[in-house]
């Protein structure tokens, strides 16, 4: 029987069936589950690498050694891995190598919505685009065949809706493991100019052959339509939207291999229809390619570049119909994501807000420190940028070469905040720059002992591997000291006084320092919580001091009988962290613990 399977799980199944042996990835929504699911197969060695560049190079090494390999990442992760990507295109592979990149149109959990298809064209690599879970499984397997036939890594591009939607899948058996002997080949694998110059024409020739392959590939297929007034070219999840909106009214050319595109088939399709419309999310990638072939077509004149598409937008533009529902004439307060009750980041961000710090932030759950009432973040760019930008910020304002006293005043309260996993990913190199080029900087590592936002993945500081088994553990304090930082201290973010004292002292010190704010994520299964707190209504005066930490378990409620307002704790959310208690001048918070607890 067919199984209901998430796109990412089906992709992992594809890796298994294809005989993949080594998978190295860095977690990133919406790509994370591929490697997590692959790790459930004992036949595949899986790991979390410190970052995507390391993951891709590891996968390359495994392919070079003669085993089918994989690395997966989100769209912005491919930026980090772009360096090996462009040159592994030149060297080619030994055994098959597949790279998955998962885009996030609509930015459900990302800082931008770049279109990764451009990478396939720029790095001259084939790219496949599945549109549901069954295709995810099949395309991942197909990718290995293409990889070995054409001596190239193959990119499979997922998107949020394909990665995180479940649809029915027919599974198969695992193929025999590929074991290609490793042979030394300096001209192919040592990319110094003399060798690389000879490899470039091979890459161009490969692309020419792949164009022909694309024209004959069943991954690019025609769906018949009743009327040829319009013909639609589409791929990925947009194919599903088109079919839902139009059914079999118009012919559809469904693209499964999005690079290189099937030029001859596109021309043939275009000739057979009166009006050619390209339906694709984000950039006009297919549209511009068609125009470069001299084919007249529409696309972004109808559909937005920004955000996700859906069946409704397509029906509106192509069928001039749309569905609507009843709407309330009422202002509905938004419900933005918030730091969880008991989140260890909260106490630290409260301290930063209280000290009016300029906070250069980073990527993770703690980016929510920017949300009111904490509002303790000034900048978030990309993985690791907090540390490097802090160095630049401080260098620009340091009181030398005519720097004004006003400038030195500005840098007094500037800090960087970065999570443990993000620090391992790309914060270390920024910290090396501070150590080397000597800015007076205060870096705060928010060590919650896990990669939080993507759903609890282990990292080099946690002491466990992807399967949860004991692994190497990097000691953050020793690492920072080894880089030359004399001032490295650890604070408990549940202790507001300790955080405040440490922050003040380190900002006042005359050398750089690292503060490690350490407490495991409150959602980790092994974390034991205290019983929830409650409010003594006789003591609470409704001053709202406790509301300054933005805890979702706290609210202010009217007590109609008493005619007063007081704080209230939601006992289903409160984990007894006690941060609110430290803000109350009236001792109004009490434990609900029974005697002996």
């Amino acid at each position: 029987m067919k199984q209901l399977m998430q796109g990412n799980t089906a992709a992992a199944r594809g890796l298994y069936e294809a005989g993949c042996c080594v998978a190295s990835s860095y977690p990133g929504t919406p790509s994370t589950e591929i490697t997590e699911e692959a790790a459930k197969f004992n036949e595949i060695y899986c790991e979390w690498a410190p970052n995507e560049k390391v993951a891709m190079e590891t996968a390359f090494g495994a392919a070079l050694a003669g085993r089918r390999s994989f690395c997966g990442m989100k769209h912005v992760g491919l930026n980090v891995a772009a360096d090996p990507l462009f040159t592994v295109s030149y060297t080619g592979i030994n055994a098959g190598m597949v790279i998955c990149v998962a885009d996030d149109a609509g930015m459900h959990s990302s800082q931008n919505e770049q279109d990764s298809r451009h990478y396939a064209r720029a790095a001259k690599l084939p790219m496949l685009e599945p549109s549901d879970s069954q295709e995810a499984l099949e395309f991942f397997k197909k990718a290995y065949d293409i990889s070995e036939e054409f001596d190239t890594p193959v990119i499979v591009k997922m998107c949020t809706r394909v990665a995180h939607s479940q649809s029915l899948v027919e599974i198969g058996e695992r193929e025999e493991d590929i074991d290609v002997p490793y042979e030394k080949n300096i001209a192919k694998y040592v990319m110094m100019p003399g060798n690389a110059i000879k490899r470039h024409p091979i890459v161009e020739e490969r692309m020419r052959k792949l164009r022909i392959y694309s024209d004959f590939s069943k991954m690019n297929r025609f769906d018949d339509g009743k009327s040829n007034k319009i013909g639609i070219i589409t791929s990925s999840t947009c194919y599903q939207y088109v079919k839902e909106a139009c059914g079999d009214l118009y012919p559809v050319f469904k693209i499964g291999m999005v690079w290189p595109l099937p030029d001859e088939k596109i021309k043939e399709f275009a000739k057979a229809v009166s009006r050619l419309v390209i339906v694709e999310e984000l950039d006009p990638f297919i549209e511009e390619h068609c125009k470069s072939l001299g084919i007249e077509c529409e696309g972004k004149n109808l559909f937005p570049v920004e955000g996700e598409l859906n069946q409704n937008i397509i029906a509106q533009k192509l069928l001039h119909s749309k569905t609507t529902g009843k709407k309330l004439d009422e202002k509905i307060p938004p419900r933005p994501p918030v730091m969880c009750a008991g989140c260890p980041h909260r106490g630290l961000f409260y301290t930063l807000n209280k000290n009016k710090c300029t906070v250069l932030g980073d990527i993770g759950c703690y980016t929510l420190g920017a949300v009111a009432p904490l509002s303790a973040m000034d900048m978030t760019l990309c993985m690791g940028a907090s540390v490097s930008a802090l160095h630049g910020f401080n260098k620009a304002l340091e009181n030398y070469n005519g720097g004004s006293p006003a400038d030195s005043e500005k840098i007094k309260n500037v800090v960087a905040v970065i999570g443990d996993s993000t620090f391992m990913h790309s914060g270390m190199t920024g910290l090396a720059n501070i150590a080397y080029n000597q800015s007076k900087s205060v870096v705060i590592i928010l060590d919650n002992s896990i990669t939080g936002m993507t759903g609890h993945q282990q990292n080099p500081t946690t002491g466990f591997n992807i399967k949860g088994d004991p692994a190497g553990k990097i000691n953050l304090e020793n690492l920072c000291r080894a880089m030359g930082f004399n001032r490295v201290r650890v604070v408990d973010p549940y202790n507001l006084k300790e955080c405040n004292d440490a922050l003040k002292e380190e900002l006042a010190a005359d050398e750089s320092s690292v503060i490690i704010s350490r407490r495991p994520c409150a959602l980790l299964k092994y974390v034991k919580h205290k019983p929830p707190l409650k409010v003594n209504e006789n003591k609470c005066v409704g001053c709202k001091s406790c509301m300054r930490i933005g805890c979702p378990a706290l609210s202010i409620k009217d007590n109609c009988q008493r005619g007063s307002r007081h704080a209230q704790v939601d006992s289903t959310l409160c984990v007894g962290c006690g941060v609110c208690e430290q803000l109350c001048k009236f001792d109004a918070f009490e434990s609900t613990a029974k005697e002996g607890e």
Partner: protein
Amino acid sequence: MTTKNIMIVGVGGQGSVLASKLLGHLLTTQNFDVKVSEVHGMSQRGGSVVTYVKYGDKVYSPVVEKGEADFIVSFEILETARWLEYLKPDGQIVTSTQQIDPMPVLTGAMTYPENLLEKIQATGVKVDALDCLKLAEEAGSSKAVNLVLLGRLSHYFNDIKPGAWQEAIEACVPPKFLELNKKAFELGKQA
């Protein structure tokens, strides 16, 4: 059969993932084509979350758009109001009456709208509202709201036998919590 669309809406962390998993399993055993779509990552942190479950002879799009939902199953009344526009004119709402203040309300920047249930009913849509939190606590855990809601929803699926629901619960709930969840389902069904 034409495609039926269910939306499960609530607040991140309320248990919509299990609810959609269970529905997905149930509908697959009934030999429908099924798609379930949810969003992971940042919005899960206490934000407004939505999951789509679609089934029929052939399902294409994994998402549900405005005016397309046959059912909205909601964990929280403000979320019911937020997603109301997605309901078909003749669609059915099954909602918990629970209220959870979003951050702009907690900080005092905005107020939680009053009498939301009445206002939703006044638009003329079909609403089945019940205090799922109370029933879940009666079953043994405030976390079982999802099963109370599904129990209630099962009323509207006449062609699915009760045994199939039981089998789906057994397949999706860890054995340790099975009795509790079955009880929550029954309480929702009988409410």
